[in-house]
């Protein structure tokens, strides 16, 4: 990676770049998954393409592309290899975090990094606490303007490939949540490749240990404040997750169609020469296509709703965006998991050969859709439909 500033992509260029990279990434996706080969080279190509900089604000020299385009970029990347769509997910979320909570100087410094192709990882989630939003990691005072960061984080997607790791931490043991921006190679930062998920295997969503990492004031941005007013922070993060699931479902369906056209044998009862002419197989494809189209349509609406809310941020517009994203998330999750399981039914006996690795779609969908429970998306939609109640404000909506 050179230190030069990346190309600033407009929407068409961004979508074109995503499709191009997706085609490249697709070729090795099954094998990388099977061998768990971490995609360092592919992440470099992604960074070099300029795609990681498309949300940098215009005043900082970026293209500031709307959520609708970002979501479609994610969906396309995920059709190619959803690992390579999930790896930069946190990067985009923290670019957004920086835009919302960074001061002018912080933005100037870090956006410049992004424009040079630098990547943000994440270190948010903790285990051993009662609920997923309880955290222990904290910044403790270490002299004037300096802090020490200690803690252990899990599910740190992207951290292994990152230049910067934004760490969610209390400012003071019981203090409000902040983000400490630490360099991946800073002293006391250890990124452990211990991710053991059944799917999204090459995301390396492992552990980050922080031991007495020294952090200066100027590398700390507020976090808790994000949720004090109407916000699309959570909705933006979630709609990108939905895009990844939509891409997984589409990839599964396309691979199954190719398999049925070229490899499946027809069943005698169908009375046809080609498996692809079996009316019941066609019906199953139609049902899967229908579910995916529905999910994709909700994804588009959700991304537009986030853009609409950003353009005119009110309680109402933020709630509409959150609900639209909740719907997209629930629908893409179901469509991805169901399609990825059902493709075997149409592809037939031979599709279960381990060497084909057709099950990676199901494993990817199954793992990634658990990121936060779809059941609660449905609950929020229900409260709205029944009582007109707006959803709560947090990072998962």
């Amino acid at each position, binding site marked *: 990676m050179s230190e030069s500033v990346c190309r600033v992509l407009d929407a068409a260029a961004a979508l074109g770049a995503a499709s191009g990279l997706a085609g490249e990434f697709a070729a090795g996706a099954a094998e990388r998954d099977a061998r768990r080969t971490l995609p360092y080279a592919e992440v470099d190509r992604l960074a070099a393409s300029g795609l990681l900089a498309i949300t940098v604000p215009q005043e900082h020299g970026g293209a500031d592309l709307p959520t609708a385009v970002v979501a479609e970029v994610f969906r396309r990347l995920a059709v190619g290899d959803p690992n390579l769509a999930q790896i930069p997910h946190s990067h985009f979320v923290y670019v957004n975090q920086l835009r919302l909570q960074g001061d002018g100087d912080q933005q100037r410094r870090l956006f410049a990094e992004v424009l040079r192709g630098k990547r943000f990882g994440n270190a948010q989630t903790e285990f051993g606490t009662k*609920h997923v939003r*309880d955290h222990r990691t904290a910044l403790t005072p270490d002299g004037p303007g300096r802090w020490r960061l200690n803690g252990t984080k899990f599910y740190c997607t992207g951290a292994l490939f990152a230049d910067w790791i934004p760490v969610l931490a209390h400012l003071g043991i019981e203090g409000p949540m902040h983000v400490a921006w630490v360099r991946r190679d800073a002293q006391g930062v250890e990124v452990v490749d211990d991710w053991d998920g*059944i799917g999204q295997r090459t995301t390396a969503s492992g552990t980050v240990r922080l031991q007495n990492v020294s952090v200066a004031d100027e590398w700390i941005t507020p976090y808790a404040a994000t949720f004090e007013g109407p916000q699309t922070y959570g909705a933006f993060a979630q709609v990108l997750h939905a895009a990844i699931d939509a891409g997984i479902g589409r990839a599964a369906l396309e691979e199954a169609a190719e398999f049925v056209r070229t490899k499946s044998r027809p069943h005698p009862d169908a009375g046809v020469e080609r498996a692809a002419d079996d009316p*019941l197989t066609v019906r199953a494809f139609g049902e899967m296509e229908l579910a995916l189209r529905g999910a994709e349509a909700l994804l588009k609406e959700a991304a537009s709703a986030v853009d609409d809310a950003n353009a005119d941020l009110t309680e109402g517009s933020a709630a509409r965006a959150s609900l639209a994203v909740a719907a997209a998330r629930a629908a893409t999750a179901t469509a991805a998991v169901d399609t990825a*399981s059902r493709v075997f039914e149409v592809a037939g006996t031979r599709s279960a*050969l*381990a060497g084909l690795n057709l099950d990676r779609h199901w494993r990817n969908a199954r793992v990634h859709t*658990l990121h936060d429970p779809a059941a609660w998306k449905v609950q929020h939609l229900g409260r709205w439909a029944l009582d007109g109640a707006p959803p709560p404000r947090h990072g998962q909506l």
Partner: protein
Amino acid sequence: MTNGQDAPDWSTPPATPDGWVARAREVAARLAVDAVVRDREGATPYAEVELLKDAGLVPLLAPAEYGGGGQDWTTAYRVIRAVAAGDGSIGQLLGYHYLWAWAARLVGTPAQIEAVERQAAEEGWFFGGAVNPRDDDLVIREEDGELVFNGRKTFSTGGKVSDVTVLEGVLEGTGKHVFAIVPTDQDGIVFAGDWDNLGQRLTESGSAVIENVRVPWAAAAGYVPRADGYEFVPRTYNTLNVPLIQLVFTNFYLGIAQGALETAAAYTREKTRAWPYAADRKERGVDEFYVQEAYGDLQSKLWAAEALAERAAGLVEQINARADDVTPEERGEAAVVIAAAKQTAIDAGLEIGTRVFEVTGARASANAVGLDLFWRNIRTHSLHDPVAHKRAEVGRYALTGELPEPTWYT
């Protein structure tokens, strides 16, 4: 797999059908301990088959007078289900074994039946099979009054872990299929060990090469000497092999689904956290209404599928009770109910195998937990024949009373 020093006393066979099922559950509990690890290692399941033998489950169907369990298929199906709850592969191996052990009953002459069952019980045979009659890939030549098998089967079951193998081939130049039971351990049978699928990984279901395996005409199941050579006398009961094995499938799918639900429930009880953003925030995952509702939905579906499999077993018993004069209609009606039971089990099993993750949570998706094993196992074997056409078969019966013609899928 726990075996050896802490093995219970399995020297006395159970006295009742329920006792046999309880025995099978003991076996399943031992298998479940490291099912995930053994699946990953993919070693040939010698020890697992040894466990089945130790527990006395192998000669379950053999007449008690020869030292067998003397049980009926209803019990065998329940035993298969119970074992599969601990390890789907081993449940499948045992189920196929029961079918092949029954092959003599299906196509043999009374003398062959007696001879096979006596020897099988006495020597404790574990049966495998190299039978896939849709392909005529095993050719039989007659040489010196003996039958000589040559060719290759894409799929077999049991393979190296079996004591005897049921071979099926076609007499060269005729359309006549011949089944024969031969010792597995002979130079003429080579298993390629090439079964590498995403599930049911310990079933030794790979291809087999058969080279000059010789059997006497007398071992050709169901063939009787006539003036102009040996001839097969068909009975409707011959065609019961497919319904029998389809109900074997059904039962190991049900067992796998049960294993999934119980494993998930244990995880949810012990580890699943409640959702912190809920309006009615709960203490534990197990208290969440949506978790309870999902388990209730899955448990109800599984119970319904199990109940239908039990009904199907009852139809099998009715037929077995009068094997010599079963009518094509009885056979057809049983086949339709079994088809319905199978698709119900597949639907329930796949849904359970997939949805359990939604009620255990993200951390349950680690390889170390291995909760994906259940989905992989059902997904793989349920591809045996397309479920949509099974549904259409049941639909034709519901609509017009049409019964399926006996084929290799019905």
